[in-house]
Protein backbone atom coordinates (compact mmCIF):
# COMPACT_ATOMS: atom_id res chain seq x y z
CA UNK A 1 0.00 0.00 0.00
CA UNK A 2 1.49 3.32 -0.99
CA UNK A 3 1.48 6.02 1.61
CA UNK A 4 -1.50 8.25 1.98
CA UNK A 5 -1.46 11.29 -0.22
CA UNK A 6 -1.92 14.31 1.93
CA UNK A 7 -3.60 17.06 0.01
CA UNK A 8 -2.24 20.56 0.22
CA UNK A 9 -3.74 22.35 3.19
CA UNK A 10 -6.87 24.17 2.26
CA UNK A 11 -7.50 27.77 3.02
CA UNK A 12 -9.57 27.58 6.17
CA UNK A 13 -12.92 29.23 6.09
CA UNK A 14 -12.87 32.51 7.95
CA UNK A 15 -13.04 31.65 11.65
CA UNK A 16 -16.39 32.75 12.96
CA UNK A 17 -16.16 35.30 15.75
CA UNK A 18 -17.30 34.58 19.27
CA UNK A 19 -20.49 36.52 18.63
CA UNK A 20 -21.59 34.38 15.72
CA UNK A 21 -20.56 31.20 17.55
CA UNK A 22 -22.80 32.20 20.45
CA UNK A 23 -25.61 33.00 18.05
CA UNK A 24 -25.08 29.57 16.48
CA UNK A 25 -25.18 27.76 19.81
CA UNK A 26 -28.15 29.76 21.00
CA UNK A 27 -29.98 29.45 17.69
CA UNK A 28 -29.39 25.69 17.80
CA UNK A 29 -30.85 25.50 21.31
CA UNK A 30 -33.93 27.43 20.21
CA UNK A 31 -34.39 25.26 17.12
CA UNK A 32 -34.18 22.10 19.23
CA UNK A 33 -36.64 23.42 21.85
CA UNK A 34 -39.02 24.46 19.12
CA UNK A 35 -38.76 21.05 17.48
CA UNK A 36 -39.31 19.11 20.72
CA UNK A 37 -42.28 21.21 21.76
CA UNK A 38 -43.75 20.95 18.26
CA UNK A 39 -43.45 17.15 18.38
CA UNK A 40 -45.15 17.13 21.80
CA UNK A 41 -47.87 19.45 20.56
CA UNK A 42 -48.59 17.30 17.49
CA UNK A 43 -48.69 14.21 19.70
CA UNK A 44 -50.51 15.98 22.49
CA UNK A 45 -52.73 13.00 23.23
CA UNK A 46 -49.64 11.48 24.79
CA UNK A 47 -49.00 14.57 26.88
CA UNK A 48 -52.57 14.40 28.13
CA UNK A 49 -52.00 10.74 29.00
CA UNK A 50 -48.91 11.77 30.94
CA UNK A 51 -50.89 14.39 32.91
CA UNK A 52 -53.47 11.71 33.64
CA UNK A 53 -50.74 9.44 34.91
CA UNK A 54 -49.50 12.07 37.36
CA UNK A 55 -53.02 12.61 38.66
CA UNK A 56 -53.60 8.88 39.08
CA UNK A 57 -50.37 8.53 41.04
CA UNK A 58 -51.52 11.33 43.37
CA UNK A 59 -54.84 9.59 43.88
CA UNK A 60 -53.07 6.34 44.69
CA UNK A 61 -50.95 8.06 47.33
CA UNK A 62 -54.04 9.43 49.00
CA UNK A 63 -55.65 5.97 48.98
CA UNK A 64 -52.50 4.38 50.36
CA UNK A 65 -52.28 6.84 53.23
CA UNK A 66 -55.97 6.59 53.95
CA UNK A 67 -58.46 9.19 55.07
CA UNK A 68 -56.14 10.72 57.65
CA UNK A 69 -56.39 14.31 56.53
CA UNK A 70 -53.64 15.50 58.88
CA UNK A 71 -51.11 13.08 57.44
CA UNK A 72 -52.19 13.84 53.88
CA UNK A 73 -51.76 17.56 54.33
CA UNK A 74 -48.42 17.15 56.06
CA UNK A 75 -46.98 15.12 53.18
CA UNK A 76 -48.61 16.95 50.29
CA UNK A 77 -45.22 18.21 49.06
CA UNK A 78 -43.76 14.72 49.06
CA UNK A 79 -46.68 13.29 47.07
CA UNK A 80 -46.43 16.04 44.51
CA UNK A 81 -42.76 15.44 43.83
CA UNK A 82 -43.02 11.67 43.77
CA UNK A 83 -45.84 11.96 41.22
CA UNK A 84 -43.71 14.32 39.15
CA UNK A 85 -40.70 12.05 39.40
CA UNK A 86 -42.63 8.98 38.30
CA UNK A 87 -44.16 10.87 35.37
CA UNK A 88 -40.81 12.33 34.43
CA UNK A 89 -39.24 9.01 33.54
CA UNK A 90 -42.02 8.36 31.02
CA UNK A 91 -41.64 11.83 29.57
CA UNK A 92 -37.86 11.69 29.37
CA UNK A 93 -37.77 8.24 27.81
CA UNK A 94 -40.28 9.25 25.16
CA UNK A 95 -38.46 12.45 24.30
CA UNK A 96 -35.34 10.43 23.52
CA UNK A 97 -37.31 7.65 21.83
CA UNK A 98 -38.60 10.17 19.30
CA UNK A 99 -35.00 10.75 18.30
CA UNK A 100 -33.93 7.14 18.14
CA UNK A 101 -37.09 5.76 16.54
CA UNK A 102 -36.35 6.70 12.95
CA UNK A 103 -32.70 7.62 13.08
CA UNK A 104 -33.54 11.26 13.77
CA UNK A 105 -30.63 11.55 16.21
CA UNK A 106 -28.12 10.84 13.44
CA UNK A 107 -29.85 13.45 11.32
CA UNK A 108 -29.59 15.87 14.22
CA UNK A 109 -25.89 15.17 14.61
CA UNK A 110 -25.26 15.93 10.95
CA UNK A 111 -26.81 19.39 11.06
CA UNK A 112 -24.45 22.14 12.15
CA UNK A 113 -25.83 22.29 15.68
CA UNK A 114 -23.33 21.45 18.47
CA UNK A 115 -24.14 18.45 20.64
CA UNK A 116 -24.34 20.72 23.68
CA UNK A 117 -27.10 22.73 21.98
CA UNK A 118 -29.02 19.52 21.36
CA UNK A 119 -28.71 18.71 25.06
CA UNK A 120 -29.75 22.15 26.28
CA UNK A 121 -32.61 22.29 23.80
CA UNK A 122 -34.00 18.93 24.82
CA UNK A 123 -33.42 19.53 28.54
CA UNK A 124 -35.19 22.90 28.39
CA UNK A 125 -38.11 21.42 26.47
CA UNK A 126 -38.35 18.67 29.08
CA UNK A 127 -38.24 21.29 31.84
CA UNK A 128 -41.15 23.11 30.22
CA UNK A 129 -43.17 19.91 30.01
CA UNK A 130 -42.40 18.97 33.60
CA UNK A 131 -43.52 22.40 34.76
CA UNK A 132 -46.71 21.81 32.80
CA UNK A 133 -47.23 18.47 34.57
CA UNK A 134 -46.60 20.23 37.89
CA UNK A 135 -49.16 22.92 37.05
CA UNK A 136 -51.78 20.24 36.58
CA UNK A 137 -50.64 18.03 39.45
CA UNK A 138 -50.33 20.80 42.07
CA UNK A 139 -54.02 21.81 42.21
CA UNK A 140 -55.02 18.14 42.26
CA UNK A 141 -52.54 17.54 45.07
CA UNK A 142 -53.94 20.46 47.04
CA UNK A 143 -57.51 19.30 46.50
CA UNK A 144 -56.78 15.73 47.56
CA UNK A 145 -54.69 16.54 50.62
CA UNK A 146 -56.44 19.66 51.78
CA UNK A 147 -53.17 21.59 51.90
CA UNK A 148 -52.95 25.18 50.67
CA UNK A 149 -50.21 27.32 49.22
CA UNK A 150 -49.33 30.22 51.51
CA UNK A 151 -46.42 31.61 49.51
CA UNK A 152 -47.10 31.28 45.77
CA UNK A 153 -43.76 32.86 44.81
CA UNK A 154 -41.86 30.15 46.59
CA UNK A 155 -44.05 27.48 45.03
CA UNK A 156 -43.34 28.76 41.52
CA UNK A 157 -39.60 28.94 42.18
CA UNK A 158 -39.52 25.42 43.59
CA UNK A 159 -41.50 23.97 40.70
CA UNK A 160 -39.21 25.56 38.10
CA UNK A 161 -35.94 24.75 39.88
CA UNK A 162 -37.08 21.25 40.78
CA UNK A 163 -38.28 20.50 37.23
CA UNK A 164 -34.93 21.73 35.89
CA UNK A 165 -33.14 19.54 38.43
CA UNK A 166 -34.97 16.46 37.16
CA UNK A 167 -34.76 17.41 33.48
CA UNK A 168 -30.98 17.86 33.11
CA UNK A 169 -29.75 14.52 34.48
CA UNK A 170 -32.92 12.91 33.17
CA UNK A 171 -32.34 14.01 29.58
CA UNK A 172 -28.73 12.96 29.92
CA UNK A 173 -29.50 9.49 31.21
CA UNK A 174 -32.31 9.03 28.69
CA UNK A 175 -29.74 9.61 25.94
CA UNK A 176 -27.28 7.28 27.64
CA UNK A 177 -29.82 4.45 27.85
CA UNK A 178 -31.71 5.16 24.62
CA UNK A 179 -30.12 2.25 22.77
CA UNK A 180 -29.68 -0.12 25.70
CA UNK A 181 -31.91 -3.14 26.26
CA UNK A 182 -33.97 -2.68 29.42
CA UNK A 183 -33.89 1.11 29.22
CA UNK A 184 -37.37 1.45 30.77
CA UNK A 185 -35.91 0.10 33.99
CA UNK A 186 -32.44 1.56 33.74
CA UNK A 187 -33.50 5.17 33.38
CA UNK A 188 -35.29 5.41 36.75
CA UNK A 189 -32.62 3.26 38.40
CA UNK A 190 -29.93 5.68 37.28
CA UNK A 191 -31.94 8.83 37.81
CA UNK A 192 -33.63 8.31 41.17
CA UNK A 193 -30.57 7.91 43.41
CA UNK A 194 -28.84 10.78 41.66
CA UNK A 195 -31.58 13.31 42.26
CA UNK A 196 -32.07 12.57 45.94
CA UNK A 197 -30.66 16.02 46.86
CA UNK A 198 -32.96 17.79 44.40
CA UNK A 199 -35.89 15.76 45.69
CA UNK A 200 -35.10 16.64 49.31
CA UNK A 201 -34.77 20.31 48.49
CA UNK A 202 -37.93 20.41 46.38
CA UNK A 203 -40.08 18.51 48.90
CA UNK A 204 -38.86 20.60 51.82
CA UNK A 205 -39.35 23.91 50.04
CA UNK A 206 -42.77 22.88 48.72
CA UNK A 207 -43.86 21.85 52.19
CA UNK A 208 -42.66 25.18 53.57
CA UNK A 209 -44.54 26.99 50.79
CA UNK A 210 -47.66 25.18 52.05
CA UNK A 211 -47.18 25.51 55.79
CA UNK A 212 -45.39 28.83 55.95
CA UNK A 213 -41.78 29.40 56.80
CA UNK A 214 -41.38 30.87 60.30
CA UNK A 215 -37.73 29.80 60.60
CA UNK A 216 -36.69 31.29 57.27
CA UNK A 217 -35.46 27.99 55.85
CA UNK A 218 -36.80 28.43 52.34
CA UNK A 219 -33.76 30.30 50.96
CA UNK A 220 -31.44 27.44 52.00
CA UNK A 221 -33.51 24.87 50.16
CA UNK A 222 -33.81 27.02 47.08
CA UNK A 223 -30.05 27.51 47.16
CA UNK A 224 -29.54 23.77 47.35
CA UNK A 225 -31.81 23.29 44.32
CA UNK A 226 -30.07 26.04 42.42
CA UNK A 227 -26.63 24.59 43.17
CA UNK A 228 -27.79 21.13 42.08
CA UNK A 229 -29.20 22.59 38.86
CA UNK A 230 -26.05 24.56 38.07
CA UNK A 231 -23.79 21.57 38.65
CA UNK A 232 -25.80 19.12 36.58
CA UNK A 233 -26.75 21.49 33.78
CA UNK A 234 -23.05 22.21 33.29
CA UNK A 235 -21.73 18.69 33.75
CA UNK A 236 -24.33 16.99 31.54
CA UNK A 237 -23.93 19.61 28.82
CA UNK A 238 -20.21 18.97 28.87
CA UNK A 239 -20.50 15.18 28.67
CA UNK A 240 -23.45 14.94 26.26
CA UNK A 241 -21.35 14.92 23.10
CA UNK A 242 -19.46 11.86 24.32
CA UNK A 243 -22.73 10.07 24.91
CA UNK A 244 -24.34 10.73 21.55
CA UNK A 245 -21.21 10.27 19.46
CA UNK A 246 -20.33 6.95 21.08
Amino acid sequence: MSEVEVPAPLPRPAQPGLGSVLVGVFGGVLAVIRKDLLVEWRARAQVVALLGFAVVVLLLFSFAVGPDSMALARHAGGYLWLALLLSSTLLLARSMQNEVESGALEGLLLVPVPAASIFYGKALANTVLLVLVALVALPVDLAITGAAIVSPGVAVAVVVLGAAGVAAPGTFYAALTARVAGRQLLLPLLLFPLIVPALLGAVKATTLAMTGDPMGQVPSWLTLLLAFDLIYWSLCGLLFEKVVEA
Partner: protein
Amino acid sequence: MTSRSYVAGAALSAIGFALLVVAHYLGLFVAPREAMMGDVGRILYVHVPTAWGALLFYLGAFVAAIGSLWSGRRGWDAATTAMVEVGTVMTFLLLVQGSLWARPTWGTYWTWDPRLTTSAVLAAAFGVVLLLRRLIDQPARRATATAVATIVAFVDVPIVYFSVKWWNSLHQPVSSRQTIDSPMMQPLLIAAVAVLLLGIGLSVLRWRVELARLLAEEAAPDLPDAPAPLDLSGASGAPRG
Protein backbone atom coordinates in the same frame (compact mmCIF):
# COMPACT_ATOMS: atom_id res chain seq x y z
CA MET B 1 4.00 -7.98 32.95
CA THR B 2 0.59 -9.51 33.30
CA SER B 3 1.59 -12.19 35.73
CA ARG B 4 3.62 -9.68 37.71
CA SER B 5 0.57 -7.50 38.35
CA TYR B 6 -1.42 -10.58 39.31
CA VAL B 7 1.29 -11.45 41.83
CA ALA B 8 1.38 -7.86 43.08
CA GLY B 9 -2.40 -7.80 43.41
CA ALA B 10 -2.44 -11.08 45.27
CA ALA B 11 0.44 -10.01 47.52
CA LEU B 12 -1.20 -6.69 48.40
CA SER B 13 -4.47 -8.45 49.16
CA ALA B 14 -2.66 -10.97 51.38
CA ILE B 15 -0.76 -8.29 53.28
CA GLY B 16 -3.95 -6.27 53.63
CA PHE B 17 -5.79 -9.28 54.96
CA ALA B 18 -2.99 -10.10 57.42
CA LEU B 19 -2.94 -6.52 58.67
CA LEU B 20 -6.70 -6.64 59.05
CA VAL B 21 -6.34 -9.66 61.32
CA VAL B 22 -3.70 -7.85 63.38
CA ALA B 23 -5.79 -4.69 63.58
CA HIS B 24 -8.84 -6.60 64.74
CA TYR B 25 -6.89 -8.57 67.29
CA LEU B 26 -5.69 -5.26 68.69
CA GLY B 27 -9.10 -3.68 68.35
CA LEU B 28 -11.06 -6.52 69.92
CA PHE B 29 -8.74 -7.67 72.66
CA VAL B 30 -6.06 -5.07 73.35
CA ALA B 31 -7.58 -1.65 72.91
CA PRO B 32 -9.53 -0.26 75.88
CA ARG B 33 -13.28 -0.55 75.88
CA GLU B 34 -15.00 2.47 74.46
CA ALA B 35 -16.29 4.72 77.24
CA MET B 36 -19.84 5.36 76.10
CA MET B 37 -20.70 2.48 73.83
CA GLY B 38 -18.81 -0.31 75.52
CA ASP B 39 -17.75 -3.29 73.44
CA VAL B 40 -20.14 -2.28 70.67
CA GLY B 41 -17.81 0.63 70.01
CA ARG B 42 -15.17 -1.79 68.80
CA ILE B 43 -16.99 -1.97 65.45
CA LEU B 44 -15.29 1.36 64.88
CA TYR B 45 -12.13 -0.44 63.81
CA VAL B 46 -13.80 -2.00 60.85
CA HIS B 47 -16.46 0.60 60.15
CA VAL B 48 -14.41 3.77 59.85
CA PRO B 49 -11.73 2.27 57.57
CA THR B 50 -14.46 0.82 55.34
CA ALA B 51 -16.01 4.25 54.99
CA TRP B 52 -12.69 5.85 54.13
CA GLY B 53 -11.93 3.05 51.70
CA ALA B 54 -15.28 3.31 49.91
CA LEU B 55 -14.87 7.01 49.33
CA LEU B 56 -11.25 6.61 48.27
CA PHE B 57 -12.08 3.93 45.71
CA TYR B 58 -14.96 5.97 44.31
CA LEU B 59 -12.53 8.83 43.97
CA GLY B 60 -10.14 6.50 42.17
CA ALA B 61 -12.95 5.34 39.89
CA PHE B 62 -13.82 8.97 39.15
CA VAL B 63 -10.23 9.70 38.11
CA ALA B 64 -10.04 6.52 36.02
CA ALA B 65 -13.36 7.41 34.39
CA ILE B 66 -11.98 10.77 33.30
CA GLY B 67 -8.93 8.94 31.94
CA SER B 68 -11.16 6.48 30.12
CA LEU B 69 -13.29 9.18 28.57
CA TRP B 70 -10.25 11.21 27.61
CA SER B 71 -8.10 8.46 26.13
CA GLY B 72 -10.64 5.85 25.08
CA ARG B 73 -8.21 3.19 26.27
CA ARG B 74 -9.58 -0.04 27.67
CA GLY B 75 -7.07 -0.07 30.54
CA TRP B 76 -8.79 2.95 32.07
CA ASP B 77 -12.18 1.41 31.44
CA ALA B 78 -11.14 -1.76 33.26
CA ALA B 79 -9.69 0.32 36.11
CA THR B 80 -12.91 2.32 36.42
CA THR B 81 -14.95 -0.84 36.67
CA ALA B 82 -12.56 -2.47 39.11
CA MET B 83 -12.66 0.49 41.49
CA VAL B 84 -16.42 1.01 41.19
CA GLU B 85 -16.82 -2.65 42.10
CA VAL B 86 -14.49 -2.48 45.10
CA GLY B 87 -16.10 0.78 46.22
CA THR B 88 -19.58 -0.69 45.90
CA VAL B 89 -18.67 -3.80 47.88
CA MET B 90 -17.27 -1.56 50.61
CA THR B 91 -20.41 0.57 50.57
CA PHE B 92 -22.61 -2.48 51.05
CA LEU B 93 -20.39 -3.64 53.92
CA LEU B 94 -20.63 -0.14 55.32
CA LEU B 95 -24.41 -0.28 55.25
CA VAL B 96 -24.47 -3.60 57.07
CA GLN B 97 -21.94 -2.43 59.67
CA GLY B 98 -23.73 0.88 60.10
CA SER B 99 -27.05 -0.83 60.76
CA LEU B 100 -25.42 -3.23 63.23
CA TRP B 101 -23.88 -0.31 65.03
CA ALA B 102 -27.01 1.79 64.94
CA ARG B 103 -29.17 -0.92 66.53
CA PRO B 104 -27.53 -0.99 70.02
CA THR B 105 -26.43 2.65 69.90
CA TRP B 106 -29.47 4.45 68.56
CA GLY B 107 -32.02 1.69 69.11
CA THR B 108 -32.81 1.22 65.44
CA TYR B 109 -31.26 -0.44 62.41
CA TRP B 110 -31.91 2.50 60.23
CA THR B 111 -31.73 6.18 60.92
CA TRP B 112 -31.51 9.19 58.66
CA ASP B 113 -27.96 9.86 59.66
CA PRO B 114 -26.27 11.72 56.78
CA ARG B 115 -23.49 9.16 56.56
CA LEU B 116 -25.82 6.19 56.48
CA THR B 117 -28.17 7.81 54.01
CA THR B 118 -25.32 8.91 51.75
CA SER B 119 -23.97 5.36 51.76
CA ALA B 120 -27.35 3.99 50.76
CA VAL B 121 -27.66 6.47 47.91
CA LEU B 122 -24.10 5.74 46.76
CA ALA B 123 -24.61 2.00 46.85
CA ALA B 124 -27.62 2.45 44.57
CA ALA B 125 -25.99 5.00 42.27
CA PHE B 126 -22.77 3.06 41.69
CA GLY B 127 -24.43 -0.34 41.73
CA VAL B 128 -26.53 0.76 38.75
CA VAL B 129 -23.38 1.79 36.89
CA LEU B 130 -22.25 -1.83 37.08
CA LEU B 131 -25.67 -2.98 35.91
CA LEU B 132 -25.62 -0.53 33.00
CA ARG B 133 -22.25 -1.90 32.02
CA ARG B 134 -23.56 -5.45 31.79
CA LEU B 135 -26.32 -4.39 29.43
CA ILE B 136 -24.18 -2.82 26.68
CA ASP B 137 -22.34 -5.16 24.31
CA GLN B 138 -20.50 -2.68 22.16
CA PRO B 139 -17.11 -2.09 23.82
CA ALA B 140 -16.62 1.58 22.93
CA ARG B 141 -20.16 2.53 23.86
CA ARG B 142 -19.92 0.54 27.08
CA ALA B 143 -16.70 2.28 28.08
CA THR B 144 -18.25 5.70 27.47
CA ALA B 145 -21.42 4.85 29.36
CA THR B 146 -19.46 3.49 32.33
CA ALA B 147 -17.22 6.53 32.44
CA VAL B 148 -19.90 9.21 32.21
CA ALA B 149 -22.21 7.43 34.65
CA THR B 150 -19.33 7.13 37.13
CA ILE B 151 -18.44 10.80 36.79
CA VAL B 152 -22.05 11.93 37.18
CA ALA B 153 -22.55 9.68 40.22
CA PHE B 154 -19.34 10.77 41.92
CA VAL B 155 -20.17 14.45 41.60
CA ASP B 156 -23.34 13.64 43.52
CA VAL B 157 -21.44 12.38 46.61
CA PRO B 158 -20.89 15.74 48.36
CA ILE B 159 -24.29 17.08 47.29
CA VAL B 160 -26.09 14.10 48.76
CA TYR B 161 -24.05 14.28 51.95
CA PHE B 162 -24.68 17.95 52.59
CA SER B 163 -28.32 17.86 51.58
CA VAL B 164 -29.04 14.98 53.95
CA LYS B 165 -27.06 16.61 56.70
CA TRP B 166 -29.00 19.80 56.27
CA TRP B 167 -32.31 18.06 55.98
CA ASN B 168 -31.56 16.09 59.10
CA SER B 169 -30.20 18.89 61.23
CA LEU B 170 -33.58 20.56 61.02
CA HIS B 171 -35.35 17.88 63.02
CA GLN B 172 -32.78 16.00 65.01
CA PRO B 173 -29.23 16.69 66.02
CA VAL B 174 -26.63 15.04 63.85
CA SER B 175 -25.03 12.12 65.61
CA SER B 176 -21.69 13.28 66.86
CA ARG B 177 -18.74 11.01 67.27
CA GLN B 178 -16.34 11.32 70.13
CA THR B 179 -12.75 12.23 69.44
CA ILE B 180 -10.70 9.13 69.46
CA ASP B 181 -8.19 8.38 72.23
CA SER B 182 -4.69 7.48 71.25
CA PRO B 183 -4.76 3.83 72.42
CA MET B 184 -7.65 3.36 70.03
CA MET B 185 -5.85 5.20 67.29
CA GLN B 186 -3.26 2.52 66.67
CA PRO B 187 -5.57 -0.34 65.69
CA LEU B 188 -7.70 2.10 63.72
CA LEU B 189 -4.76 3.25 61.63
CA ILE B 190 -3.55 -0.31 61.08
CA ALA B 191 -7.05 -1.30 60.01
CA ALA B 192 -7.21 1.68 57.64
CA VAL B 193 -3.94 0.69 55.99
CA ALA B 194 -5.15 -2.91 55.87
CA VAL B 195 -8.42 -2.01 54.15
CA LEU B 196 -6.56 0.24 51.76
CA LEU B 197 -4.05 -2.46 50.80
CA LEU B 198 -6.74 -5.09 50.53
CA GLY B 199 -8.81 -2.78 48.34
CA ILE B 200 -5.86 -1.92 46.12
CA GLY B 201 -4.90 -5.56 45.82
CA LEU B 202 -8.44 -6.58 44.87
CA SER B 203 -8.70 -3.64 42.46
CA VAL B 204 -5.49 -4.65 40.73
CA LEU B 205 -6.65 -8.23 40.39
CA ARG B 206 -10.07 -7.17 39.20
CA TRP B 207 -8.50 -4.66 36.80
CA ARG B 208 -6.29 -7.31 35.21
CA VAL B 209 -9.13 -9.79 34.87
CA GLU B 210 -11.45 -7.18 33.38
CA LEU B 211 -8.76 -5.92 31.02
CA ALA B 212 -7.98 -9.45 29.87
CA ARG B 213 -11.68 -10.00 29.25
CA LEU B 214 -12.02 -6.74 27.32
CA LEU B 215 -8.96 -7.46 25.23
CA ALA B 216 -10.11 -10.99 24.47
CA GLU B 217 -13.49 -9.65 23.50
CA GLU B 218 -11.90 -7.19 21.12
CA ALA B 219 -8.89 -9.24 20.04
CA ALA B 220 -8.39 -8.22 16.45
CA PRO B 221 -8.65 -11.15 14.11
CA ASP B 222 -6.35 -10.96 11.08
CA LEU B 223 -7.55 -8.71 8.36
CA PRO B 224 -8.99 -10.75 5.53
CA ASP B 225 -6.64 -11.20 2.58
CA ALA B 226 -6.86 -8.84 -0.31
CA PRO B 227 -9.38 -10.28 -2.75
CA ALA B 228 -8.50 -12.03 -5.94
CA PRO B 229 -9.04 -9.80 -8.98
CA LEU B 230 -12.38 -10.36 -10.57
CA ASP B 231 -12.38 -11.65 -14.11
CA LEU B 232 -15.14 -10.05 -16.13
CA SER B 233 -14.23 -11.66 -19.44
CA GLY B 234 -16.49 -14.65 -18.84
CA ALA B 235 -19.51 -12.45 -18.28
CA SER B 236 -22.05 -13.58 -20.79
CA GLY B 237 -24.33 -11.24 -22.57
CA ALA B 238 -25.77 -7.85 -21.84
CA PRO B 239 -27.32 -7.02 -18.49
CA ARG B 240 -30.71 -8.43 -18.09
CA GLY B 241 -33.45 -5.90 -18.00
